[in-house]
């Protein structure tokens, strides 16, 4: 395997040096295999990926607490299934960034395409630009913070976790939502079925303040947000609707 390393001397210090993968020279498979080969407690905790040029599946399946800086824009599924990694995309991300994330942290400095954080089980996904449609669809415990706007059908069937949006939300926010918490500072174009505006109680202010702190956002106050969540009217089948099926 041809892995370029900024430090070449095989000293102990070298193992602490940042490992650099240039996707112009190394294959994506080599990168992901090297990340998967990391043993627990490895000293190789800092990684840098150059020239991603929209590649799919960059740093998918990371399962060690390493930090990975991706210099450029990525395609589909970046950081998918992440368990403990801290991944920063210094560019924009294609569809499905952080899909099914388990834990750890993903930061996208630019925009994210559709279904960011879909089905995520845990961890924190921060999108500093805008997110597109279906952000947080079927989320199951992940926390997502979007500095810009989100598109239509976001948090569709969201089960748990929190979606925080500093900008506006598109049509049908939180359609058929279960127990995820939605916090929007801007306007909501429309709410989906069974999603309603809810009261901000002190525990929600505290929760939101913690999320904003962890996302590194200092210019927004929790009091500026509106909370949305499930009206819980779709939880059980209503026999009066039987004719509709």
């Amino acid at each position, binding site marked *: 395997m041809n892995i370029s390393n900024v430090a070449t001397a095989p000293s102990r210090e070298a193992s602490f040096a940042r490992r650099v993968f240039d996707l112009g020279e190394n294959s994506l498979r080599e990168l992901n295999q090297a990340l998967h080969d990391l043993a627990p407690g490895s000293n190789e905790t800092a990684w840098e990926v150059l020239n991603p040029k929209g590649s799919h599946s960059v740093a998918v399946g990371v399962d060690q607490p390493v930090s990975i800086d991706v210099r450029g824009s990525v395609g589909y599924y970046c950081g998918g299934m992440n368990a403990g990694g801290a991944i920063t995309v210094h560019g924009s991300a294609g569809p499905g960034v952080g899909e099914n994330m388990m834990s750890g942290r993903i930061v996208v400095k630019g925009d994210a395409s559709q279904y960011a954080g879909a089905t995520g089980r845990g961890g924190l996904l921060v999108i500093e630009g805008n997110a597109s*449609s279906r952000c947080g669809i079927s989320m199951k415990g992940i926390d997502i913070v979007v500095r810009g706007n989100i*598109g239509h059908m976001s948090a569709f069937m969201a089960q748990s976790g929190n979606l925080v949006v500093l900008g506006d939300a598109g049509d049908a926010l939180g359609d058929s939502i279960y127990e995820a918490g939605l916090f929007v500072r801007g306007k909501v174009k429309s709410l989906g079925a069974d999603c309603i505006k809810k009261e901000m109680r002190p525990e929600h202010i505290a929760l939101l303040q913690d999320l904003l702190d962890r996302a590194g956002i200092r210019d927004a106050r929790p009091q500026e947000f509106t909370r949305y969540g499930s009206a819980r009217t779709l939880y059980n089948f209503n026999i009066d609707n039987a004719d509709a099926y």
Partner: protein
Amino acid sequence: MCGIVGLFLKDKSLEPRLGALLSEMLVSLTDRGPDSAGIAIYDSGAAGHGKITIQSSTPKADFEGLEADLGKKIGAKVSSIVKSTHAVLDVPADKLEEARAAIAELRPNVRLMGVGEAIEIYKEVGLPADVVKRFDLARMGGSHGIGHTRMATESAVTTLGAHPFSTGPDQCLVHNGSLSNHNNLRRELIRDGMRFETENDTEVAAAYLSSKIAHGQNLGEALQSSLEDLDGFFTFVVGTKNGFGVVRDPIACKPAVMAETDQYVAFGSEYRALANLPGIEEARVWEPEPSTVYFWEH
């Protein structure tokens, strides 16, 4: 899936490189659709000249002597450039319709790819890299162009089923998605006088737009109408003699990324297709909104 690319140049100095840029964009999306590939390139020739792009599965027999036969039939000078299975015929612009009818009579096995003053269309089954090489597309210049690589869902993998589809002079359309009301719409358009070559859903969308334009709408208005009348999934990129447009259906699950600089407007199904364009680092890159018509004109 399918992959779409489009490039509309604002900076004339890039025009000689249009074919090369568009070819590289298209090849980068090969794994979105390996069945067939095609490109429409707009390059306005001398005033008064028109172009007819034709395709034949027996090019040697069909193209030999066609210049002379057609010239005699329409009473005008005809020249042609043959590239593999395709030929581009140069005829006087005011004789385009006459020439089109004459070709159908003279060479009944020839298929019409496109007609107009600027458009040339090349499409075949096979990988984008092979199609691009076969027609030497990287050496072509022009003002704007559209490419498509196909993963077939709604109709057979044939040359005629490949994109772009052209159903009106200098008009073409490529499509990622699938339409669900194309059979009904085809019947209505046939009643309206449109001609169809295939059972393909995308051809119906192209004919729909051509029909709207023939009834007086501009490209932007025609695209707006399509949002009302077409049912299904679509990201469309369309070309006209001077223009380039993009529209996505309200669900917008078919991916799309755009980039704009002082030199060009570019479209790709994915960012990968745009990653090597000149000045992409400084470009404004965005995802086109659902149900929103975008178009640019020279």
